[in-house]
């Protein structure tokens, strides 16, 4: 509910002699430190007695409506939590065959125990699955390291190049005694991770060019960029993926084929670039005109002005929307299942089709959902941290 009752207004002393009831609430001010602030940032007005009780009263039972809502929530909790806890943990069966699951009343986590290799690595040769595992671990470690402020140095780019070479060697093999695994055998988490990160990494420079082109004073270039961005943003990703998967082979000269994975990557890159370009454009528009004029007055060329003055400021402003776009791109990677690629979601779906484990689809989807949730949630928290970091110098 929106706050508008008078009781919520913190009194503001305006005259020399505040009315008596204002003074009363001021005297209570020091003791408020012991009570936690309310969710909306206001502090409780009348804290007295044992803190948890006064907190409960102020946050859950302060008005008749809130009392009713709280009771409804408690009823919902009572209805949902015990059965959920029973299903998820207490009555769940954690190991053994599907027979054990049929006898247990709760969730069947053994399906994850049995199928986790399939869900994570798809149809990659079973004995070689330590390789995609190592590649994913390397990748996630590098992603984590790239998020740390202290590591934002030129050597990070070199480390990434090394990691990518290492991953290529691990995944493909064919050198250093590793057997060769063609990329149509790849699947699961490596596909999800690689498609999302590569499409974003490739889309980023493209999106900057598109955003600059859209702001350009040259009509031909501007029209092209506007057309591309609006076309990509106007159609669903599914149709872009279809186009990539069926039309790219038609575009290429006879005899030249492009790998299915690469086609999906191209489609995702073009799509992500259009959305990112709009985010970057927001940043370009937020730069005060005086900055452009000052750069012109210094006699800088277009590219000097752009690279040294405009882009550094614009990109800092749009870090949060860019990270949000990363999150969408990560989630959208699951769509490649529609053009027949073996990502994490496809692998999970395949796991549910095994007749023996068919009844336990919920567990598999909960697990796959949790995987996506962990990545997306950490990215969204990271973007909030970045936002604070970026605004550190502009805040008053």
């Amino acid at each position, binding site marked *: 509910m929106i706050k508008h009752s008078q009781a919520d207004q913190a009194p503001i002393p305006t005259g020399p002699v505040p009315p008596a009831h204002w003074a009363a609430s001021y005297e209570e001010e020091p003791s408020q430190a012991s009570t936690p602030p309310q969710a909306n940032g206001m502090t409780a007005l009348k804290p007295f007695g044992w803190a948890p009780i006064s907190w409960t009263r102020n*946050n859950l039972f302060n008005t008749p409506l809130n009392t009713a809502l709280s009771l409804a929530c408690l009823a919902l909790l009572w209805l949902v939590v015990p059965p959920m806890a029973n299903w998820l943990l207490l009555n769940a069966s954690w190991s053994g065959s599907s027979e054990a699951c049929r006898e247990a009343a709760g969730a069947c986590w053994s399906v994850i125990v049995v199928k986790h290799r399939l869900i994570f690595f798809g149809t990659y040769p079973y004995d070689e699955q330590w390789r995609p595992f190592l590649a994913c671990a390397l990748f996630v470690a590098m992603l984590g390291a790239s998020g740390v402020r202290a590591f934002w140095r030129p050597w990070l780019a070199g480390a990434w190049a090394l990691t990518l070479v290492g991953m290529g060697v691990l995944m493909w093999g064919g050198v250093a005694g590793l057997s060769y695994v063609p990329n149509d055998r790849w699947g699961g988490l490596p596909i999800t991770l690689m498609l999302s990160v590569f499409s974003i990494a490739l889309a980023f420079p493209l999106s900057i060019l598109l955003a600059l082109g859209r702001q350009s004073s040259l009509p031909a270039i501007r029209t092209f960029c506007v057309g591309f961005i609006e076309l990509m943003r106007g159609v669903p990703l*599914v149709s872009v993926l279809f186009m990539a998967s069926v039309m790219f082979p038609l575009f290429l000269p006879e005899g030249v084929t492009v790998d299915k994975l690469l086609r999906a990557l191209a489609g995702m890159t073009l799509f992500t670039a259009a959305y990112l370009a709009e985010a970057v454009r927001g940043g370009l528009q937020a730069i005060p005109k005086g900055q452009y004029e000052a750069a012109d007055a210094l006699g800088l060329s277009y590219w000097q002005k752009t690279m040294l003055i405009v882009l550094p400021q614009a990109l800092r402003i749009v870090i949060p929307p860019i990270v949000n776009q990363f999150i969408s791109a990560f989630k959208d990677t699951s769509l490649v299942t529609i053009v027949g690629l073996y990502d994490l979601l496809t692998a999970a779906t395949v796991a549910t089709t095994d007749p023996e484990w068919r009844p336990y689809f919920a567990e598999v989807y909960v697990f796959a959902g949790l995987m996506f949730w962990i990545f997306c949630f950490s990215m*969204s928290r990271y973007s909030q941290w970045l936002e604070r970091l970026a605004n550190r110098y502009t805040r008053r």
Partner: protein
Amino acid sequence: MTNPVQALNSARVRGWLYQALFLACTLAVAWYLVSNTLTNLATRGVATGFGFLHREAGFEIGESLLSYTASDTYLKALAVGLLNTLAVSAAGVVLASVLGVLIGIARLSSNWMVNRFATLYVETVRNVPLLLQLVVWYTIMNRLPSPREALEILPGIFLSNRGMKFPVLVEHAGHGWVLLALVAGIAAAFAVVRHGRRRREATGKPFPTLPAAIAAVLLPPAVAFIATGAPLAFDVPALAGFNFEGGGSVTPEFTALLIGLSVYTAGFIAEIVRSGILAVPHGQTEAGLALGLSPGKILRLIILPQALRVIVPPLTSQYLNLTKNSSLAVAIGYPDLVSVSNTSANQTGQVVEAVAMMMLVYLIISLAISGFMNWYNRRVALVTR
């Protein structure tokens, strides 16, 4: 006359030069791709052009708002797909807006528990791919009990693995008049709202807009209903043999897609509503209180008009996203535009035409939605000097 070297230093001349270069490169690439495509199509023996639209499609479509059989043309099949896309998007937009506004307000609740529930919803729904959610809803729909043990979620509304069954009104000639009266009532309500606002702006006197508008909407249909003597009878679905008879129904695919799209988009709409309301400075509420307005009036006359200004543009993109996301129907077998186009392309081999038409239709839908919402946005936008 300037010499060529000096001319090269002029920004205008260089601009033309760059554009000419850019155009030449673009055209060269386009020509290369098109010529490759034509050669490839020729070697595969695929006809080009839109002639295939008038041929017999030869495939069945599971659900359709038009009467459609396998012997109809591709054009009709595509129309069925388009209508299915529009149907699920329209229903989804309405459902997602209602759910999203409720959750957005719940996120701002002073009640700690309501607040946390809403946060949990938003964080869960937004951080799991829509496709995964759709697949889960579809699996749930498919593994519901058979019609004989159907779940009765509300009286008369049944969920089973054959989809959702719900009661519908028994048809009667009088219903047409009631509907007409309802349209007239809505028009009258718009007139009342306009008159109320004019009077308030001209005289400063409040006008009972809301009660008057509700009366204007409800009265004419009620009068028509009594006058024509239309029966208020429902055709309630009932179990007969192995399936239900009577009532209206929607397929499991439609239900799963609708629930999935609405639940997912509502999470985003909730955040937009929340930020919109938070964007209104608290001083506005205080000023309203100082004027002696009631909380309801403050919400309706001061907060909402200002919050809408912030809410409408991002809400537009959410509606567009929902419409575009309905294309994920292809994963769960709901015959939407993408799915029908895909089948047509596979059967005829005329991929280029099918994909081009699909993209064109989505572009038109997008433009229409954003055109409408921009018009609405202009109406609610802040008029600055």
